[in-house]
């Protein structure tokens, strides 16, 4: 057993872990943070994506001991209390999910994308999420959810800067376009 100290969703954790334990099992079994899912064990599907020191990583391909001294954020740590992160809100509003199993990983990858590229094109989004598989939705609504979130985050940033905020935010039209088709 090896002793590790990690900060998970803002809380310091110290545990003895088996050196062969994967980070995802540490999060799920030791800490009970089951929102991080396992879909393949081979880093292909992205269901287990979390943030390690601010960067999206696949927790099925990292040993818990490698996370020693790191700061981890999981899907459970993304919202601020009852206030969902804009990406979470986007997935909820734009129907970016069906069964929900890939959703936490998708959201963690998407938030990483938006940190680095606040204004991604549709193609940017599709390529950034190439390591996250969804078997239900057909992906369109996932892209829309992230566009919705990007727009919302820009609007909030403008509001914080004191700049005038558009009264008809673009993200609303993303949603409306979808409705017109049905």
């Amino acid at each position, binding site marked *: 057993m090896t002793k590790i100290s990690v900060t998970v969703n803002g809380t310091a954790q110290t545990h003895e872990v*088996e050196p*062969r334990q994967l980070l995802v*099992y540490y999060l*799920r*079994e030791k800490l*009970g*943070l*089951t*929102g*991080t*899912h*396992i*879909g*393949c*064990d*081979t880093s*292909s*599907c992205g269901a287990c994506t979390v943030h390690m020191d601010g960067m999206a990583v696949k927790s099925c391909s990292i040993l818990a001991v490698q996370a020693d001294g790191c700061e981890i954020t*999981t*899907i*459970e740590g*993304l*919202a601020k209390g009852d206030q*969902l992160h804009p990406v*979470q*809100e986007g*997935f*909820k*509003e734009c*129907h970016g*999910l*069906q*069964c*929900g*199993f*890939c*959703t*936490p990983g998708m*959201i963690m990858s998407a938030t990483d994308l938006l940190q680095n590229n606040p204004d991604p094109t549709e193609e940017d*989004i*599709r*390529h950034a*999420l*190439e390591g*996250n*598989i*969804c*078997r*239900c*939705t*057909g*992906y*369109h*609504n*996932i*892209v829309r959810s992230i566009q919705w979130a990007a727009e919302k985050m820009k609007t909030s940033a403008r509001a914080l800067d004191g700049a005038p905020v558009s009264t008809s935010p673009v993200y609303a039209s993303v949603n409306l376009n*979808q*409705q017109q*088709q*049905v």
Partner: protein
Amino acid sequence: MVTKQIGKPQNRVDGRDKVTGRARYAAEFSATDLAYGVVVSSAIAKGKIKEMDTSEALRVEGVLDIFTSENRPKLASYDSSFQDEDAPPGSPFRPLFNRDILFNMQPIALVVAETYELARYAASLVKVEYETEEHVTNFEAERTNAYEPEEYKSTPPPDPWGKPETALKEAEHRISEVYSHPSQHHNPMEMHASTAIWEGDGRITVYDKIQGVLNSQEYIMGVFGLAKEDVRVLSPFVGGAFGSGLRPQYQLFMAVMATLELKRSVRVVLTRPQMFSFGHRPKTVQQLSLGASADGTLEAVVHHAFAETSRFEDYSEDVIIWPGVLYKCENVKLSHKLVGLDVYTPLDMRAPGGTTGIFALECAIDELSYKVGMDPVEFRLKNYSVKDQNVNKPFSSKELQECYRQGAELFGWKNRNPQPRSMREGHNLIGWGVANGAWEATQKPSGAKAVLTKEGKLTVSSATADIGTGTYTIMSQIAAECMGLPIENVEFKLGDSSLPQSPLEGGSWTASTVGSAVKLVCEKLGEKLLELAQESDDSPFKEVSIEEVEFTDGQMRLKEDTSVAIPLTQLLKENQKDSVQVEAESKPADEQENYSPYSHSVVFVEVNVDEDLGTIKVTRVVSAVAGGRILNPKTAWSQILGGVVWGIGMALEEYSVMDHQYGRFINHDLAEYHVPVNADVHDVEVIFVDEEDQIVNPLGVKGLGEIGIVSVAPAIANAVYHATGKRVRDLPITLDKVM
């Protein structure tokens, strides 16, 4: 207060739980005494276990036990105890029953340990010696032994009608081709898992990945001889299934067996490679011969299907019924034979038989339209069917012509030059293809319960499932609308074997089946509330019938005079009731017997094929669907979109590759088994045409889980022909086949 709910693009009621990680799937329930089971899989496809040495594995500290065919507890021995709600005719696989190996990766042992890591490590130490027998997994080699099963799981092939052979011989235009697709695996994102919680005194609670908790409960009762009250099965969230969760899978058996033996809770989760060790879409080869007259009338259809099954069960699906559903033809002959292989029994996978049969039929129809020299849409409309010829009954509704009209217009079909290789952009050949399809719109019997509290909260429940389709949401909408309550006041419960009976979630029948039960139970609740109001002599509702009242804005009121109203909360309080509860069981109406109910679709596709590299991109899809009443445009749109993307996977990517030397699927992970990813999906438009159907069920809904996929693969294959001039009749259409 908005009470109009049906038809509203309501957000998912489970959305918040799913974006915050609070939705818990089968492997995410725990107990303080939880142990972890890891399955050891067979390395051969056929033979016997000669010897299994578990001694080294057992010496690992923390290993609790290892279960094999030698030390397993006593189990039921009759086939009937292992037969579940979705079992095909035959003798079901019985895990750890004896030393016989029936298929590669068969579960042969369960290692249970204090931690997952220990169990996984110990499993690697189990040594197995086999007596190998020669296996047969080569479909082509075994096809000469194809047989007609004594009993079909699917509709048995209808008797021929007309004079198919003569008509084919005399037809002005003929095609006769072979179409095929390989085995494919469902690969839902969640791997199959069961967590069995030991409750003491021989009682267990099981969290299972299943498309119907009652199926798992019955299976456990039958196999382990437990009483109903000692087994509760729960499945509140299912991480996709697509048919893979219709039958209880072996992880359930393993978790329950270990729990009962060790008297402590056990979780068993399959690995992704083990997800290739049970049911799959069967490899199918179809011979189709079609004949048409000079004016494009379809004169003859001869359709023979050969499909894979296991050696122990006769799995069959509705592959050959589609000519009789989709086209008017006077001379038809159909047959369906099975090819037994040393594999696990195939299993219904999204639109089983439909995707298969419609792929072959719709490619063949396209080929014939070219022979006749007619536009593929025009040819299909000329041979449009108004009745289901398999059973000689009219359709309950069929707005397929409207799908053609709206779909063709949105796609711009009229601008198509029929000549193959006539459209290009740089080194990309562009092709436009079309196909139509259908899927059954069934209603089954189902129960439901409704409880209204004095606080005005309504809970409706049924033992159905939500595999991602949106059951929670649409059932809440139906209940909210029926009782005139805001959706926030309604909770729908499912995935619990203690709830009223409901069939498996599959076959696109859940909206129709459970929706009808929810509507009925709410109507009964309404009647009960009226009776309650009538208990008081001075009630303004005293002399009125249920037809004269309506439920809206949280009130019961008179339709004629809406000022005569009582809030439901007040009604319960005045009558000193904490709650009112009713149960109901809905059944399909007898009238349905006289009709054939189907949903229909037309899919238009544009592909770009790189002439130098052979890479294929589906750049544009228009899917026009006649699916009855749409309960929720958001969930509906998403279902069809998901179906379209499954169709892209089927057409271009999905292929479980059998290594005949070992009799094993070798690409058994998500790196090698390709499913569509984000960058594979481009412009997809979905149209729902108006379709009213008063026969199909009381709600007029048809279900959308499967109609979205059926027409996609043939439309892509036809578009690839239009782009390249090559007919690829063997899926998936990979670049080597178009080069």
